């Protein structure tokens, strides 16, 4: 039974992209997908269309509310902050930072964590033990504390923040890859290919092909978690440094004005929430598609 199933999935070379057609997704997931693509487009091309620069200060336009409030104007659609910088422009540049960090964190976690997890389960024995104890430690520490220490060692800034965030997402990635690969390598078809003398590279390729679903979902989780973590670091004043516009840093600035200028609080937070939410829901959707039993 399991052999049949695994050979089937072995032959299944259907691209993941084919799950992301409007017909397949239904309207709710489609909306999420479109929203996410919009955010990605804004992150990529938005800065080309902004009128102001994110650090441009308008001294006589401090704390202007969004245009639908009395006193707001179309010149600053979402208002200005305490230094008179245009909020919309800063949000657009912030999208670039958040999405970029998310992407980088996924790449680092996948290349280092994924490899470690794979080696751990493929080699087994002492190597596996060591890697597992290592992830135990990373997981036993509150992640933000670890991030804070890493950032203090490397000095505050966006790059140390990215490194910290990637290290944080490492243990989950290592564990997931290890478990998935472990399940896969015990399957009959792998034993069969071993017994006919297939090369390691061939076996590794087969295992990876059949594990890509769960790994992709983990990457999506890593992405949304990285966005949350980098903004949390920014909020604590340890991530991106002031002139740079990043959603978490913007929230830290907004903290002192929640009563007088609540729009400074709403928009950056809503941006973080929306991106993370879209990605989590798309991850859920993909999981349901790949493993319908979980629904």
């Amino acid at each position, binding site marked *: 039974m399991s052999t049949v199933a695994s050979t089937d999935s072995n032959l299944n070379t259907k691209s993941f992209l084919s799950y992301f057609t409007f017909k397949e997704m239904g309207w709710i997931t489609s909306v999420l997908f479109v929203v996410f693509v919009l955010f990605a487009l804004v992150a990529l091309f938005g800065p080309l269309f902004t009128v102001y620069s994110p650090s441009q200060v308008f001294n006589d336009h401090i704390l202007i509310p969004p245009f639908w409030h009395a006193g707001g104007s179309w010149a600053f659609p979402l208002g200005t902050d305490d230094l008179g910088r245009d909020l919309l422009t800063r949000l657009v540049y912030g999208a670039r930072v958040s999405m970029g960090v998310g992407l980088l964190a996924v790449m680092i976690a996948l290349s280092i964590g994924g490899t470690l997890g794979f080696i751990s389960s493929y080699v087994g024995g002492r190597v596996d033990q060591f890697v597992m104890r290592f992830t135990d*430690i990373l997981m036993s520490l*509150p992640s933000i504390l670890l991030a*804070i220490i890493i950032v*203090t060692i490397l000095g505050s800034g966006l790059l140390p923040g990215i490194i910290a965030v990637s290290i944080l997402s490492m243990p989950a990635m290592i564990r997931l890859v290890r478990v998935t690969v472990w399940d896969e390598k015990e399957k009959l078809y792998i034993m069969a290919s071993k017994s006919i003398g297939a090369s390691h590279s061939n076996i590794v390729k087969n295992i990876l092909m059949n594990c890509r679903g769960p790994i992709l979902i983990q990457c999506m989780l890593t992405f949304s978690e990285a966005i949350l973590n980098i903004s*949390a670091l920014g909020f604590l004043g340890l991530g991106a440094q002031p002139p740079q516009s990043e959603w978490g840093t913007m929230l830290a600035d*907004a903290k002192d004005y929640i009563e007088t200028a609540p729009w400074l609080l709403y928009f950056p937070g809503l941006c973080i929430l929306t991106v993370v*939410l879209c990605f989590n*829901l798309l991850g859920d959707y993909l999981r349901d598609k790949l493993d319908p039993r979980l629904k």
Partner: protein
Amino acid sequence: MKQQSLFNKLGSLLFTLWLLSLVSFFLIRMVPGDPVRLMVGDMGLSEESYNEIRQNLGLDKPILVQYGDYIYKLSQFDFGQSFVTRAPVWNEFKEKLVATGELSFFAMLIAIITGLLIGIYAAANRGSFIDKTLMTGSVIGFSMPIFWWGLVLILYFSVRLELTPVSGRISAITDIDSVTGFMLIDAWFSDEPWPAFKDAVRHLILPSFVLATVPLASIARMTRSSFIDVLGEDYIRTAYSKGLTQKKVYFKHALRNALLPVVTVIGLMIGALLTGAILTETIFSWPGLGRWLLAGVEARDFPVIQSGIFLIGSLVMLLNFFIDILYKWINPRLRV
């Protein structure tokens, strides 16, 4: 068989603790900045007294000797003294742990009770409008940046509606002796138990709700999917065919089996809970572990950081260890 596996587990726990001590000791020493210079601040310091202070703090010894000292002291449950306050780290840790513990305990209480109820209710009405609303809500909760969520709630409940205080554990005018460290309990021993208690609750409610948000959402989701799995089992059909009421089937037969994956999730959540606690404490100026450690990192207070990290790490590991045992207790199949 059982004895040996427990023994093995303890062995690997000890090994992990040792690795943890290594990490916590060397990590903080990699942070640039000299604790003595930071302590003194901008006031100048003669070379002589600088060396004397370093000697007093034991910082002049070779690093491996320092590590040896640290391990030797750890083995006697001596966690050193803070460079800054000169108080034993253990005493400070206890005090802060209780504050964070109170916050986390109520957050977990809210999360577990509400999460289970929501999950069961959604599973019972699977596919309905209510189910979809609850589950959408839980994904939103799961994706919530809690530092923002905390600020939004402060804006509405504290600033606009003035229902709850903005920060701290108790109002400054209330005079309370620290008996247990739990503000809610200590309040009962003060001169005016009832107003003090109410005040403590009003301080506690918003931060614990903020901290509960993410765990609540994941518990609700996990409970729902595990409940749906269990409801499809044969013994549930048998229970119904015996003529039991739905309530009995749900809470006597289904719940215990559905709880298994939920307990695992709760165990994995403890580390994340502390992360949330650090952020929540920052927003609400709650005098707990998070703020203590942040201040320690800033002052390069080596003993506070190395022992603090070690203690928190061991605490999380021990809790996970007990949850493992609890898991076996709930699931008799694993008890062999």
